[in-house]
């Protein structure tokens, strides 16, 4: 403040003189002011693709929520609501499901092609195709076969019954007439960039900034959306995104950076709303590395990190330190497992126990080589809190004598290195879950191939077995008990160093009303949002 005053009490006249002269010049060619009825929202991550299957990022999943529909949906108070299906029946063994589809639903686009049962069958077969690269495939493994009985009836048979079979049918339906020439889904297909769906908003255009314009679909079967246009603007700089919000250039920011929360909270023009509490951050250890395959070493690394200090310094204590593979907001979190405390002596002891030798320069392994791990991190200009965590981590480990070689990779190469080639020792990332808290695809040894989620190649027969049991269980309490056990085992085994779970905050101007943000899908009921 002192600085401002000093600078501007004296120079204000001069500066504003120059600027106002220029404004006058500019206003000569000024255009109209923004028409109301367009919602601008800011994202920090540019979506990879826009179809709901090939991307693995939240930003494109949010968009696909606006463009596509499933057979059924889940609203924010956990109720199943019909979407493209009007009603459904289930056989007594809960393995055969018959859905009666809504009539008079048409796909976006001028030709208004009607939606029918063949689209559903086509979608399932397309995603199940072995060449389709999608992290959603686990969900489709449950479908044994799918059959269109007539234009408005589909029959599914499942491989096994499970607790929430109905929830399987929330998958998004793709148009057959647009994709019929593809056998499998590919990131490069034109559909992935110009999607067509049945949802409340239709894709209008996307420029190379990936500023994506969506237009309200007046024929939407759940009622015409109130906001005429939604425009997604990606920002490469989160500071600027925040400024854009506070200067009314944006109406909503989807993921507010932790360092802006205080500022926006104090500003009465905006509301902050928390969502996706079911996410957590972690350091993942590649089990293909001989040293990191050793449980003692992984535990030692977890002991060496002072998570409390980091949480306080970087996030102002706005989060909870976790002890295992679930977020504390999940039903599966085992409250009896206490997070490991920071204890560098114990870490050193564990490393010695694992056969490493401590020298004054640091630890060396049995061949006399210094212990050194590659920590690969994406360069994300917009997410610099990641950088802080990684640097602090390196610092903690240096203190106990383990060298960390930080490798910053450009985001695309990072994804390739981590998910496809598994070429890393340690990495830092964040998982976001829906409320099924299903960690099957993250820790089951079956999913350790390229582009699947078990990129650390974790392989523990006991965990595999428990995951299988949890998937097959039809008893709620049993499912919880198994997950509690999994939590215990994984906390002990430390395939990750589990860090914390943070609440994500969205901020929007108070000009908007009826805003309900779905806990993990975000735009679930955007067709009801409106401007005051």
């Amino acid at each position, binding site marked *: 403040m002192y600085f401002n005053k000093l600078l501007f009490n004296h120079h204000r006249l001069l500066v504003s003189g120059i600027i106002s002269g220029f404004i006058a010049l500019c206003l000569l060619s000024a255009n109209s002011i923004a028409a109301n009825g367009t919602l601008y929202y800011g994202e920090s991550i540019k979506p990879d693709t826009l179809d709901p299957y090939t991307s693995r990022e939240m930003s494109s999943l949010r968009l696909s929520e606006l463009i596509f529909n499933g057979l059924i949906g889940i609203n924010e108070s956990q109720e199943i609501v019909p979407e493209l299906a009007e009603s459904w029946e289930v056989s007594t063994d809960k393995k055969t499901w018959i859905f009666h589809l809504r009539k008079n639903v048409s796909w976006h686009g001028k030709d208004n092609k009607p939606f029918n049962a063949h689209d559903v069958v086509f979608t399932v077969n397309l995603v199940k195709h072995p060449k389709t690269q999608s992290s959603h495939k686990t969900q489709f493994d449950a479908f044994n076969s799918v059959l269109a009985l007539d234009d408005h009836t589909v029959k599914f048979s499942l491989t096994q019954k499970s607790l929430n079979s109905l929830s399987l049918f929330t998958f998004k339906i793709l148009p057959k007439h647009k994709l019929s020439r593809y056998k499998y889904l590919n990131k490069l297909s034109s559909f992935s960039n110009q999607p067509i769906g049945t949802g409340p908003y239709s894709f209008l255009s996307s420029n190379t900034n990936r500023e994506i314009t969506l237009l309200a679909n007046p024929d939407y079967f759940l009622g015409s959306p109130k906001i005429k246009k939604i425009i997604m603007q990606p920002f490469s700089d989160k500071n600027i995104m925040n400024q854009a919000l506070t200067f009314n250039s944006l109406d909503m920011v989807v993921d507010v950076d932790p360092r802006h929360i205080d500022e926006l909270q104090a500003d009465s023009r905006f509301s902050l709303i928390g969502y996706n509490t079911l996410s957590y951050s972690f350091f993942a250890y590649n089990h293909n590395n001989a040293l990191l395959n050793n449980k003692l070493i992984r535990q030692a690394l977890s002991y060496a990190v002072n998570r409390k200090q980091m949480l306080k*310094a970087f996030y102002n204590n706005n989060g909870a330190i976790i002890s295992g593979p679930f977020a504390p907001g999940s039903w599966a979190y085992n409250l009896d497992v206490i997070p490991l405390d920071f204890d560098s002596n114990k870490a050193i002891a564990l490393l010695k126990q694992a056969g490493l030798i401590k020298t004054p320069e640091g630890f060396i392994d049995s061949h006399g080589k210094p212990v050194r791990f590659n920590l690969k991190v994406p*360069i994300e200009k917009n997410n610099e809190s990641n950088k802080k965590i990684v640097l602090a981590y390196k610092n903690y480990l240096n203190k106990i004598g383990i060298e960390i070689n930080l490798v*910053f990779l450009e985001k695309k190469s990072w994804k390739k290195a981590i998910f496809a080639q598994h070429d890393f020792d340690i990495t830092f990332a964040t998982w976001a879950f829906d409320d099924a808290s299903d960690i099957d695809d993250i820790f089951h040894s079956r999913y350790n191939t390229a582009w699947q989620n078990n990129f650390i190649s974790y392989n523990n027969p006991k965990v595999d077995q428990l995951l299988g049991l949890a998937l097959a269980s039809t008893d709620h309490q049993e499912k919880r008990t198994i997950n509690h056990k999994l939590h215990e085992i994984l906390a002990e085994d430390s395939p990750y160093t589990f860090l914390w779970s943070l609440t994500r905050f969205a901020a929007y101007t108070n000009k908007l009303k009826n805003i309900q943000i779905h806990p993990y899908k975000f735009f679930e009921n955007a067709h009801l949002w409106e401007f005051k």
Partner: protein
Amino acid sequence: MELITLCYATLVLLTVCTFYLCASFGFLPHDPEDLALDQILAAPLNTEYLLGTDYMGRDVLTRLMLGTEAYFLPGLLAVSLAITLGSILGAMTIFFTRNGKRIINLLNNCLQSMPRLVILFLVIAIFEPEIYLIMLIIGISHIPSVARIVNNRVNVLKEKSFINSAIASGLPIHTIMFKHILWFNCRGILAAQASLIMTEAILMETSLSYLGFGVQEPASSWGNMIQAGANYMLQGEIWSSTIPAIAVMLVLSALYLLTHLFINKLDKQ
């Protein structure tokens, strides 16, 4: 006036050299890797941290000293590469036919019609964002322009039939090239050019830091210090980026003044 500018420039550059020496011998006020997570973004001029701390609670002064290495050495590489190769190429134009000079001209035109950052993007997209590689590219891309400048000078000398008479007097070719052309007649120009290239290399590293591809942390460079501090600027925490930014400004202005001194001297010649 000249004396003042000279003093100022030498003072700034000497400080940078001292910083570099201190950093390489380990005379640092704080441990550069030591995080004081309870002292994040401390204001400068406090008792413990003279220039305050950055967003991780590291001492800004220490990192400023340490940053000279990653910041100036690569720049020097670019400069020396461009100057040596460029001047040799330029001096060799005495043997070139007209077409040879045209090629140099064309290359220079090529490089002039493409923003240097774009060249760097292409390189980064293909290889890893490694600072020495970036500076290598900057150095190489300046060779034709240096060569052209030397060539112009050579042409002037030729007009004065300076070279022909030297050859006639039986001096060996390399003596003519290095001693008479480059040293006696081009040193002012080359020095000016060197400081221009240095300026550009420094600014380029800073710009790349903003885009995330400069020197990567935990290694410190002034560019990534400014970038990291700038994230906190809009919240009013201006110091951790302002201090390195001012440092950059001081060094660049010193270089600028030196360049002008050289050019003025040249004019008088």
